[in-house]
């Protein structure tokens, strides 16, 4: 903002103000569509909304909504903690296989020795599942995995199982199914990020290693992996933030089961955002309180990761002073 005033000095022409102009749209959009709703959510969470037969009464309750959803208040169940547990379980089940799979695919597709043909084609194919809408994917998998669906029937006719198993009736069956759909949908995306990270690593290092007689495996574990740390952390942060807000696949997977926003079986695959959706109509205040708690969790996780990222950068980038900017990649 000061840039504008400095312009009165005739000799130096400052283009600084244009920079502010260019970044202004983001901040304006952010203030109106993100920050304002966020502050409002805090405000709403202080009120109790009771809608009965379409008549709504709003009363100020302070922090009561928080006490309620955390199960601290008398006679209330801590649904938030329960659903947060569900969400984290689904996220872990999804993230670990996803990062391994992506890493493997990224390593293969960037390996210069393998001289894989048609890499672009493979990248497109692996990314493909991400293009399909979540709704279609959920319904598709619901049908595939159902008790008398094609997968069970095939397994049974092959004689591998004696009884059709109902995956949707088991907590881990449902959890793993949902997580595997997530993996299948998102590993292509993660792979692209990792490929970008691997390409950013200087080829000199590999060349030197090769001259020293390092095997492909050694190169991967001693060069690629350590230098990929910043990108991995970025993937981890974004995935954790997204994972906490996991909504579409579990919700639609369960809608296919006819249970709405109660994730079967026995409420074990209900995520926090499904809970928010369930509440928003009947009790805006409590939905807001859950949103705020989710926000706080996200914030904490992000801050921890950012902190870790900063320290790891100092080592990952090599030099301590000038190469700090290296993580922006090339």
């Amino acid at each position, binding site marked *: 903002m000061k840039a504008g005033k400095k312009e009165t000095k005739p000799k130096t022409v400052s283009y600084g103000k244009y920079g502010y102009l260019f970044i202004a749209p983001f*901040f304006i959009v*952010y203030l109106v*569509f*993100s*920050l304002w*709703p*966020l502050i409002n*959510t805090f405000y709403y969470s202080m009120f109790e909304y009771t809608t*009965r*037969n*379409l*008549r709504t009464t709003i009363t100020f309750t302070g922090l009561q909504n928080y006490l309620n959803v955390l199960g601290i208040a008398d006679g*209330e*169940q801590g*649904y938030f903690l329960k659903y947060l547990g569900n969400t984290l379980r689904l996220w872990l089940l999804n993230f670990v296989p996803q990062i391994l799979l992506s890493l493997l695919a990224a390593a293969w597709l960037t390996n210069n020795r393998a001289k894989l043909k048609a890499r672009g084609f493979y990248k497109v194919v692996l990314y493909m599942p991400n293009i399909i*809408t*979540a*709704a279609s994917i959920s319904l598709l998998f619901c*049908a595939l995995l*159902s*008790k*008398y*669906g094609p997968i069970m029937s095939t397994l049974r006719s092959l004689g591998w199982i004696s009884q059709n198993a109902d995956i949707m*009736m088991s907590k881990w069956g449902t959890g793993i199914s949902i997580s595997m759909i*997530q993996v299948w949908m*998102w590993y292509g995306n*993660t792979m692209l*990020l990792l490929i970008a990270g691997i390409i950013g690593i200087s080829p000199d290092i590999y060349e030197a290693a090769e001259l020293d007689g390092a095997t492909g495996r050694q190169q991967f574990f001693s060069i690629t992996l350590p230098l990929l740390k910043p990108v991995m952390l970025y*993937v981890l942060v*974004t*995935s954790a*933030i*997204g*994972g906490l*807000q996991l*909504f*579409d*696949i579990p*919700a*639609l997977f369960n*809608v*296919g*089961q*006819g*249970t*709405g*926003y*109660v994730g*079967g*079986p*026995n*409420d074990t695959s209900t995520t926090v*955002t499904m809970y928010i959706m369930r*509440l928003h*109509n*009947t*009790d805006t205040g*409590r939905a807001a309180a859950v949103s705020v708690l989710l926000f706080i969790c996200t*914030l904490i996780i992000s801050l921890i990761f*950012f902190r870790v990222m900063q320290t790891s950068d100092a080592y990952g980038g090599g030099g301590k002073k000038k190469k700090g900017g290296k993580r922006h990649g090339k």
Partner: protein
Amino acid sequence: MKKRKVLAMLLAFAMTFSLAACGSSGGNDDQANSDADTESGSDEDAIPDNEITGDPSAKDAFVVWAWNTDFTTLQDLLVEKYPDLKDRLVFVNCGGSSYYQDKIDALLDDPSNELYPDMMLLEVGYVQKYVQSDYLMSLKDLGITDADTADQFSYNIELGSDKDGVQKASFWQATPGCIQIRADLAEKYLGTTDQAELEKTFSSWDSILEAARKVNDASGGKVKLFSGYDDLKYIFLNGARTVGWYDDNDVIQMDPAMEEYMEYSKTLYDEDLTFNTTMWGTDWAALKDGDGEKSEACIAFAGCPWYTYWSLTDTWDKNTILVDAPVQFYWGGTGLAATAKCADTDVAAEIIKSCTCDKDFMTSIYKANGDFVNNQKAISDIVANNLKGASTFSLYGDQNIPEFFSTRGQNVDVSLVTAEDMTINETLFPAAVTAYATGESDKDTAIKDFKAAVHDTYSYLKVE
């Protein structure tokens, strides 16, 4: 340097905030691996667009809201009767019953919106919520008298009236329940296709259980009596209840009949007597057409008029026997109601009168789509003259759909229905039943969880 750091921090925060606040405003989460941007994406995927026919911006538009296309048959008949409605009627199909209340509730406070409903369709599961509110106009205010509605089934009048007995919603369908039996499989596994014999088998829960065991043993598990214990939920929920979900002090209460349903489900589950499907699921639908040898099949489905002529597959054509469930229940049904700020009460009155009071018009509805109409005179007319609906679907032997249901409508009892029934009956309670039946929770825990869930959804209902 400092400034840049501050800016970097700000951007970092902005990114977290915008992700956390689930608004994908900046471009920064585009490349994020995360599922973060799916939040906004899924809304588009999950909630279908309204399908609007007609021009809502016209000055004299008369807007009717529904969650499926059932009304279009009525609309065609109405336009035939009142040609000037042709250009005025605007029909909004919200795309599914799960989204209906959300979408319409947002509009009710906004009469200036061009899509503000002048008339809405209401399903039994939530009709009471609207009837007890101030958003509907009473039939009296529309000029429809008790004499006009005299031929309606009395349970439907009760469903459409508020606690002071003022009728606001008027139904065109009546929906007494039944059990539908597949004749070829009944012959094979129950040893009879005689309606009176089968009626006896399905007259009590004990004899049903016995039959279920018999079928399961005889077929080696390839054929079961029912598809799932979920299939029995409407019989219990809409027929067997002895108390409502909460008492006069808004304390949630557990009906002994509902506990009985939980026990019954557990027995069916433990002895593997059903395929444990949920209604409207893929497996559930597929089981209708199984042959019982190569593929699994089941003999009986809970049903009601619209179900029988509309949802049974070709396998069941000339192959369906209707019998009574152990208790008389009802399932579904759609009412019409004019909103308080309805733009043209004369048109609303014409539509409601024709569709829900006029014997001849309602007979023509039956002829057009086979609906079991909510008019006892029309029904006795249809039965006496053996009138045919549009559907070619027919029952086994000489049984006849309107005739079977004509005597069942009077026995339906809806005095225990509450405004919260749809969510409780279709989401919260089935979850408790499943938790108990499959052994995930013991009964006390399942009931405790259920009550907590009801309280969580409707905070004004209390757990004692």
